[in-house]
């Protein structure tokens, strides 16, 4: 009886397995298929050969992604720590405040950054009133990175905070009892223990930053092509599905490999949390 019910229980995962084969695995097979074929379906390596041309774009995307991730980490870590130190009530309010912007369309929020950063925008008109010369901000790499940091910062704050909130306080106290001052406690105790949160935060910021296309179009003025822009253009404008699929494939492999490498190094620290 017990055996049969376990088998039955296992079977209820079957619809999901069918679903993931159909809608997770099969689509990826199509990406691979399109990458290595021409428009009429014959095998080719031409798409892959053409990728060399996009090396600078790949590098730029990766670098922007790294910078945005590091900035997010630097901003988010202290914030998550401070939040976790507050009383329960304040904590809840602050977490709510972090989450709230995510409920609004990121397209609109990015668009309103344009209004802030433009040469005749809100910041510059404010500066002009103070008698300071206008600063050119929009359409610079900085503006694109700012857009990434802004949009993905909550994805860094939340996982780090949720690990810190669950930290075993007796550990922290033990560390203090052993004579650690505040800085030592943070360095030797809190940072190592919040590593799982940091790792998942890095993933959740780096992946969307590298592959974004809307932010670079709006805040970069189209002059800093990121790899997402190139992919979008192949599908929505040039009707070159094959090249688009090839670029996507490389992007996917790059990201999955770097994530795997990162997880390997942090494996001993409890794995990922969401």
């Amino acid at each position: 009886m017990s055996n049969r019910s376990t088998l039955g229980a296992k079977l209820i995962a079957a619809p999901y397995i069918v679903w993931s084969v159909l809608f997770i695995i099969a689509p990826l097979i199509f990406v691979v298929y399109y990458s290595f074929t021409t428009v009429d379906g014959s095998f080719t390596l031409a798409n892959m050969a053409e990728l060399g041309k996009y090396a600078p774009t790949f590098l730029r995307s990766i670098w922007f992604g790294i910078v945005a991730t590091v900035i997010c980490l630097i901003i988010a870590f202290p914030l998550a720590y401070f939040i976790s130190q507050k009383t329960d009530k304040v904590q809840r309010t602050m977490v709510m405040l972090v989450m709230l912007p995510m409920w609004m369309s990121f397209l609109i929020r990015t668009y309103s950054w344009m209004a802030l950063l433009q040469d005749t925008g809100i910041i510059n008109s404010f500066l002009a009133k103070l008698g300071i010369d206008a600063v050119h901000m929009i359409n610079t790499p900085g503006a694109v990175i700012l857009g990434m940091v802004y949009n993905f910062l909550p994805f860094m704050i939340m996982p780090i905070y949720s690990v810190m909130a669950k930290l075993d306080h007796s550990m922290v106290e033990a560390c203090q009892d052993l004579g650690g001052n505040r800085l030592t406690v943070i360095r030797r105790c809190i940072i190592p223990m919040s590593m799982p949160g940091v790792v998942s935060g890095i993933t959740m910021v780096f992946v969307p930053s590298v592959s974004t296309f809307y932010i670079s179009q709006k805040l970069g003025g189209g002059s800093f092509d990121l790899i997402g822009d190139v992919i979008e253009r192949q599908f929505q404008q040039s009707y070159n599905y094959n090249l688009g699929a090839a670029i996507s494939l490389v992007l996917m492999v790059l990201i999955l490999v770097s994530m795997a490498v990162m997880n390997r190094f942090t494996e001993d620290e409890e794995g990922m949390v969401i």
Partner: protein
Amino acid sequence: MKIFSKIYPILVFLFLYAPILVLVIFSFNASSSTSMFAGFSFQWYKTLFEDETTFRALYNTIILAICSSLVATVLGTAAAVGIDKLKKGPARSGIMAVTNIPMMNPEIVTGISMMLLFVFAGRLVSKSAVLGFGTMLIAHVTFSLPYVILNVLPKLRQTDRNLAEAAQDLGCKPVSAFFKVVLPSIMPGVITGFIMSFTLSLDDFIISYFTSGPGFQTLPIAIFSMTKKRVKPDMYALSAIIFVSILVLLIFYNIAQQKSEDRDRGKEKTTKSKTFGVIKTVVAVSLVAAVILVPLIVKFVKPKTESVGSLKGTTLYVYNWGEYISDGADDTVDVIAEFEKRFGIEVVYDTFDNNETMYSKLKGGGVSYDIVIPSDYMIERMISEDMLAKIDYSNIPNYKYIPEQYRGLGHDPTDEYSVPYTVGMVGLIYNTAMVEEAPTSWTALWNTDYTGNILMFNNPRDAFAIAQSILDIDYNTENEADWNRAAAVLKSQKNVSPTYVSDEVFNMMESGEAAFAPYYAGDFLSMQENNPDLALVYPKEGVNFFVDSICILKDAKNKRAAELFINFMLEPEIALANAEYICYASPHTEVYSNPEYSYYQNEYLYPEEGQFKTQNFLNLSPETLALMSSLWDDVKNYVPDPNDAEIVFTPLKDTDTDTTAPAETVMTAEAWQYVIYIGIFVAVCLAYVIFRYARKKYRENV
């Protein structure tokens, strides 16, 4: 440290809320600008509530979010229960690895991979219109599933397995044991999973962008097409409303939770009270949904139409440019509503923002429309690819209003497939407040005095046309060397750091953000209304003349209604309303010869003939198109060499050997710079890892 811990969160929150503040303030702006505040007004809220498309999109978004999160929750919970029963081993880790894919994969890759699958499946069942609600539902369920599973699994692990067995021993059937014992204890995880799926689906743009189809537009997609055109503050108004309602909801929820916690203080928290809190959340979420839905449903109870006829009750699918039809704002004629009212035919209306997007969508095979309004060269291409149906002109008596000069044009020489809708030219717009002397040539767009203040077309065909005008090359040349020369000119424009824009041009020119921009003369008129400093010239090298025409697609399901629609669009008062709204020149005799027409004999729209050369676009061969888009990618990726900032125009056609593709180094200085940065970063990370490893070993030894 204390002070820092107080100030720091405030600073971060200021950063997070700055754009939201801007958006709330500007939703009350009296003008349509999103960067200059002209006075307080509620007009955008009024416009918003009159706009049916936005509400339909909002409605679609919520329906999709509810359906997809419900499906994902049920499927995901079942999957988690099954996975939990699996022993650790290759089967389990295999399933978990696959589960992680949608989370780890960039959204754009997930989006395009699903689109490729759907398009293929559509071809397989030879059903052209697969993209729509169904495909979006599948896509949303797929990317939500991992979040449900990963929320439920830990809860299952915490549940005592003996409980379910005990229940069975006491005579419960396995199924009811699950519902009575297991499900309540994993409920918090299930609910969290549901809420996460709901939120993700609500705000998803990238995956929806690639998997959406006709007639089913979600809010993020609607917003995206609007931010390509000109975001009017009514979108800000909508966001402000959403923001405030969520804020209020969260505050209430917080207070409620606070109260229940106060009540529980001292008492041991039971599963029951937890479940109770969870149920409250669900109730709260559905309440919000209801609050938003009720006015919507009221809005969609449409008045019954009066007319009869065999076409009554049928549906017509129309695919048009954004803001390319009179929509009833400010007491104009709402053309679509008028058509629906008069003929009892329901119109599903979607928009695109350039010919290539439209073509890709149609060619991709995921969608199906009856009416489409492409530009000239695209019509020729679609005719050559057998995508358009021949129009039965006897069903369109109003075709008589199209004068001879707009008939039988190069793209449709035999006049069988298209009915001209608007015509226009590309001109050079400049800001007289920034530019002293009126420009006469396209080369003004290369003038380094205006570095950083120059806008350029963000689509290859229009951008190349400007370079080709300067070089005096035919727009429709099939000569590879000609295209390479034009690309070189476009690359040299990078020295003035142009901003590549499509419809962002409106905002940027109106707010005085840029000095020069090439754009369509019709759009210039609406920009000038908002910024009188703007002026337009038709450069001496020549300009592009275009015709956008109404066509019927080959696979149209309602061809008769489509012809009815075309005839309706040509009715003098409808054509006039559209011409007034769109601001483009009209090829309709009763419009342009009507003295009451606002742009009657307008110098920009209807310039005297013969002052400058005009050329129109024709279809290019597939090879040339491929060359163009590849060269365009090069242009966009090009980084100018500061030591070689000279701009060379070669106005004469020279057939020198060096005009063929120059052997280019792919790795630019900028690219090497990134290589170095990334290299240093990786090296630092590696060094740190090695250092830790070494230290660990050292300590172990000690």
